């Protein structure tokens, strides 16, 4: 079973590196959206520091959502998704492998670039550190929840809008607690409550999202 899991992770990472746009597009989107705000609203330090955490988190959330299509679409189109369903190994384990790869190619680069964008938004060092921790806990949740939505719409030709409607409301708690944690950190307040919530939500999603995604895939492929 572990061989199948690691082989799937290796295959998807290989495919992502051969299709570099899968890695670069969400990252460019994230960077461009965040850098547009100082141009559109105000370059003032105080204003940007105030709205920065929210902007960075909304951009990360949208970048993750826009890349969800790459999670199952190509597998559905070429029939490898059917072969995954017919594997003797639990589908939820294989699905978890695909979600991990999605996070590695979309969430992880966002975390790496976040200190730079935090600096652009005049966040303090403590706030940037908190931002990175919230992204580390929150972006896997985005991939896990997004996988359920994508699995439900994978067989639909124009499922993009439906995907947004399904997934965005579920992203709201992550957005609220994460941006609040960064704001609290800037104000010198305790952030442990928000981080505990994100950690608990992450564990909840890791436990249930692969199972829900597998069930959704079976329904979609029928």
């Amino acid at each position: 079973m572990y061989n199948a899991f690691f082989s799937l992770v290796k295959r998807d990472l290989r495919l992502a590196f051969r299709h570099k746009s899968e890695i670069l597009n969400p990252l460019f989107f994230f960077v461009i959206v965040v850098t547009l705000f100082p141009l559109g609203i105000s370059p003032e330090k105080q204003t940007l520091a105030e709205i920065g955490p929210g902007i960075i988190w909304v951009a990360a959330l949208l970048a993750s959502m826009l890349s969800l299509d790459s999670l199952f679409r190509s597998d559905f189109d070429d029939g490898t998704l059917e072969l995954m369903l017919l594997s003797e190994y639990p589908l939820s384990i294989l699905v978890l492998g695909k979600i991990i790869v999605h996070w590695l190619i979309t969430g992880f680069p966002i975390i790496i670039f976040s200190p730079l964008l935090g600096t652009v938004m005049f966040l303090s060092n403590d706030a940037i550190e908190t931002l990175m921790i919230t992204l580390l806990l929150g972006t896997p949740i985005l991939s896990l929840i997004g996988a359920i939505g994508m699995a439900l719409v994978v067989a639909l030709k124009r499922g993009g809008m439906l995907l947004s409607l399904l997934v965005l409301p579920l992203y709201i708690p992550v957005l609220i607690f994460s941006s609040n944690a960064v704001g609290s950190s800037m104000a010198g307040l305790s952030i442990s409550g928000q981080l505990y919530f994100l950690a608990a939500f992450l564990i909840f999603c890791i436990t249930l999202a692969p199972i829900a995604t597998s069930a959704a895939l079976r329904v979609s492929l029928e």
Partner: protein
Amino acid sequence: MIAENTSSTGLSVNQLTCERGYRELFNELSFELSPGEILHIKGENGTGKTSLLRILAGLALPVSGDVYFEGYNCRKYRSEYNEQIAFMGHKLGIKLELTPIENIHSYCEFSKPCTEQQILDVLEKVGLYGFEEMYCNQLSAGQKRRVAIAQAILSKAKLWILDEPFTSLDVIGIDYFLQVIQEHVNDGGMVLLTTHQDVTLENCTTRYLQLPSGELIN
């Protein structure tokens, strides 16, 4: 596992009914397939050949009825059943951005692990010698199908479910694939296939299932 229908050593289909939308494709279809047999499903377009194969592979659900493999209900023992089947649908299940070797290797990891030498041997057997390191998007439609055939061979599955397997294959490719099917059946395997071509194999029991009537012709 506890056998539920011990009368069968192969595949046993029991009163299968399938609907698509409000249209009934077939009603209370029953048949059996024993080791060493080929069942050729015939019927006009839209009579439910692909739907039947997808139900038998466990990719779709029937309205009613059950499928048993070696006496076990396939829906209850999905993982064990999946171990025993190789499915080749309209979509080939190969990644165009990978080479044939990479595709087969990743397929084998989902089913039965195989060595690189075994993959090379099978690729040579299916006529893809010299194309092992090319990306599949540089191969012709027939060559891509040969990659899928190589995957089926290496799956070592007892039951092959093949939906229009000869599409895009040239005459040599078809002859070769028929030979592969014959070898598989002679080794005790079973084949369920749909094709609009006549399948004639020597020393093999081939039966025909006509859809939508469900009439079995020996």
